[in-house]
């Protein structure tokens, strides 16, 4: 057997071992004990998940906390499979025409300091997130625009009343950045206390954190899920350089990195470790977009924007780029594979998604000629991050050159990039991205609406029709109606007006030591990080 054949076999075996991510796994009896060491690529700014938006806070801090409901850790690929974390039984169905959710809270759940958790803690938590007092930061306040009130009629009942019925509410509740805090802690210590202190009801208790180095957690003996966690503890090691993160797994200084590696690093690990490495792969709820600045005269004509999308060979790019970058799947505005998202048959009629590339590029040239912009020159602003920004940016420029456009690339460090994108708007076209946790297309697609806070295409107030379609979709009670409206919105945003262009959706690759069991890859690096179900087969 040639070395290439052996490598291919090892890769196939490794990937096959990860089938638990997408299919039924052989039932194994979890072993108790051991400490899981894993790598985190950055340091958390604080321990307060309500205030942070980075995975660097989720990975080391989430295991200390519980949520009201969570994505099922046994089936994290499902966008609709939620389970109770600190509530009782099944996730409740709404009443009152979809506008009231009533949760029964588990009895006897304890915080790490011994306090008993009640429904009032849940209410205090969601009031802090959705209705923070003036001057208190809550970056996910906007997610709860449908929430009217949250109350606790008794110690074991929490009632959420919505302003309008929407399918986006449960996914918002399952957001891993909304852990339950103690009402007493919030009242006695204030709203900033959790930035530097941890007191949760999660599977692990905070042991120590050394800035820039690591965060340690130890098993919480009074955890509310009987028999769990399996681990004695965990150590989240901070390592900024990808080469070290990969070698740390190879040298067994760490067992896993939950964010993900590019294909080359996966292949290197599989080649070096063979059966000792398992690879889990999944579509990723992050998408790289390009954003034409409607404030620039050259990008105001929809025909020019349509030409930009028509020039892009998404289906071909998917095949080639997925070998070198963390992008793969062709999709529209919604996460690929979600029931609300477009199928290939629905995408193909949209501009830029056709399978006849020659015809698409001819149409692009024709549109540019009609707009009097055949010799269009512009600059693509990009973020100074290799994966996948610079790779996709360079690819895009190659695509646009095929229709005669002259495009240069300007790469900026993250802070300058965001300043230009958000404040100065000093760009013709920019790479941009949308990265979310729980798959929730009804909320995630707000990115494509001009009035959204994170829409940088500069067309606020210029497309009222798109805004109305989005609002109708958000408030549509039936899934079929939501789906229908999402197609209308998609066509308008990506094809008819071509306000923005979707390049490729990200692809998550997690190679890890094969002795790590019980962890299944989710479509987001924010999800499935409670670690209570993880065990070590050593």
């Amino acid at each position, binding site marked *: 057997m040639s070395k290439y054949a052996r490598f291919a076999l090892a890769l196939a075996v490794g990937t096959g071992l990860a089938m638990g991510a997408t299919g039924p796994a052989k039932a194994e009896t979890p072993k108790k004990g051991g400490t899981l060491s894993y790598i985190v690529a950055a340091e958390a700014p604080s321990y307060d998940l309500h205030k942070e938006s980075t995975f660097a806070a989720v990975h080391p801090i989430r295991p200390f906390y519980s949520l009201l409901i969570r994505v099922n850790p046994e089936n994290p690929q499902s966008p609709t499979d939620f389970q109770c974390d600190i509530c009782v039984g099944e996730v409740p169905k709404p009443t009152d025409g979809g506008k009231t959710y009533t949760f029964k809270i588990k009895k006897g759940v304890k915080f790490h300091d011994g306090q008993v958790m009640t429904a009032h803690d849940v209410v205090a938590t969601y009031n802090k997130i959705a209705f923070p007092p003036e001057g208190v930061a809550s970056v996910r*306040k906007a997610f709860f625009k449908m929430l009217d009130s949250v109350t606790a009629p008794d110690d074991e009942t929490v009632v959420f009343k919505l302003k309008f019925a929407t399918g986006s509410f449960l996914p918002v509740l399952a957001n891993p950045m909304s852990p339950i805090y103690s009402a007493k802690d919030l009242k006695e210590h204030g709203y900033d206390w959790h930035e530097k202190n941890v007191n949760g009801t999660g599977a692990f208790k905070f042991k120590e954190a050394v800035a*820039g*180095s690591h965060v340690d957690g130890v098993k919480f003996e009074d955890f509310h899920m009987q028999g769990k966690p399996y681990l004695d503890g965990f150590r989240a090691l901070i390592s900024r350089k990808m080469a070290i993160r990969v070698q740390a797994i190879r040298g067994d200084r760490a067992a896993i990195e939950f964010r993900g590696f590019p294909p080359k690093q996966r292949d290197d690990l599989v080649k070096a470790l063979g059966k000792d490495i398992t690879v889990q792969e999944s579509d990723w709820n992050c998408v790289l977009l390009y954003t034409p600045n409607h404030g620039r005269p050259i990008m105001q004509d929809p025909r020019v924007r349509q030409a930009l999308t028509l020039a892009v060979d998404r289906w071909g790019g998917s095949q080639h780029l997925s070998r070198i970058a963390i992008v793969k799947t062709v999709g529209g505005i919604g996460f690929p594979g979600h029931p609300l998202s477009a199928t290939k048959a629905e995408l193909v009629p949209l501009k830029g998604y056709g399978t006849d590339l020659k015809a698409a590029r001819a149409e692009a040239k024709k549109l540019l000629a009609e707009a009097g912009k055949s010799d269009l020159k512009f600059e693509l602003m990009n973020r100074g991050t290799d994966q996948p920004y610079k790779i996709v940016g360079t690819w895009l420029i190659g695509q646009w050159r095929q229709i005669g456009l002259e495009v240069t690339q300007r790469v900026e460090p993250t802070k300058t990039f*965001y300043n230009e994108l958000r404040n100065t708007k000093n760009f013709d076209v920019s790479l941009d991205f949308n990265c979310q946790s729980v798959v929730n297309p009804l909320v995630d697609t707000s990115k494509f609406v001009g009035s959204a806070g994170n829409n940088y295409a500069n067309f606020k107030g210029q497309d009222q029709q798109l805004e109305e379609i989005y609002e109708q979709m958000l408030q549509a009670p039936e899934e079929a109606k939501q789906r229908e409206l999402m197609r209308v919105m998609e066509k308008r945003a990506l094809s008819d007006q071509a306000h923005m262009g979707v390049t490729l959706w990200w692809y998550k690759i997690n190679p890890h030591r094969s002795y790590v069991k019980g962890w299944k890859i989710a479509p987001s690096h924010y999800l499935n990080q409670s670690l209570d179900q993880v065990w070590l087969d050593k």
Partner: protein
Amino acid sequence: MGKYILKRLIAMIPTLLGAAVLVFFLLRLAPGDICEVRLLGTGATVAQEQIDICRESLGLDKPQIAQFFDFVWGYFIFDLGTSMWTGQPVTHEIAIRFELSLQLAVMATIVATIIAIPLGIISAVKQNTLIDYFVRGFAIAGIAIPSFWLGLMIILGLLVFSQAWFGEPWMPPIMFKSIWEDPAHNLSQLMWPAVATGYRYSAVAARMTRSAMLEVLREDYVRTARAKGMVEKIVINRHALKNALLPVVTILALEFAFLMGGLVVTEQVFNLNGLGNLMVDGVEHHDFTMTQNLVMLVVIVFVITNLITDLAYAWLDPRIRYS
């Protein structure tokens, strides 16, 4: 001598003040701020109100001149402020990393000195022989090879060879433990970056030792010593080397000062939680308080190292006297 040291210490004040003005205002010339990086860096949807709350809580809404006086006043009351990123006191953040950076700088300096001085002497004494060519090649390679590449090769080499020889890949620890807490762990982590850094450092010092020795060996007093029939070893070690060391000491001292906070890439390659990494984080996050204090720390280390070097001159060359 005491008067001289006092004068030098007083002269540090305008230097530090100038550095403070430069670092404070240059940092603020760059567009963007920490709140945008922190809240929007992941592409999240965040209302402007939340960004304003963040800016207010960090004092970024105050006039710049007020922020500058707060920064300078902090030095007079020994309060360097808190990191805008982690909210921890800057002194605490620096203290965590200082031991590692200091130990690594000392180890790299020892490695460099052990390699550079003997090689430089041999190279000078055996000028234009095969040994000299080898030492010069070794030194040029040390200057030419980036220490981060050497670091990566060391790690890769350890992984590959340990797997080949012992069946399991091994790499140095990636978490720091103090030498007082666990010497074996500490040394097995820090010896590799010390070698990677010390090699480049030794290359510079070896070339300097060689050229200084060559110059001194041609001096009249060396010829006189040889004419008197003095043993060559004594001529080299006692008469030539001590006089040739002045520029070498300067190089070693400046490199040592640079290593305190300047080992940015090496620290990343070996995952060392040192001052260099802290500086990178500070700059990346737009953490003004952290970055400006770290720059000031490096300035202080440089100024003090220069003073110590000047004082060492007097010991090496009795003709130099300070007043």
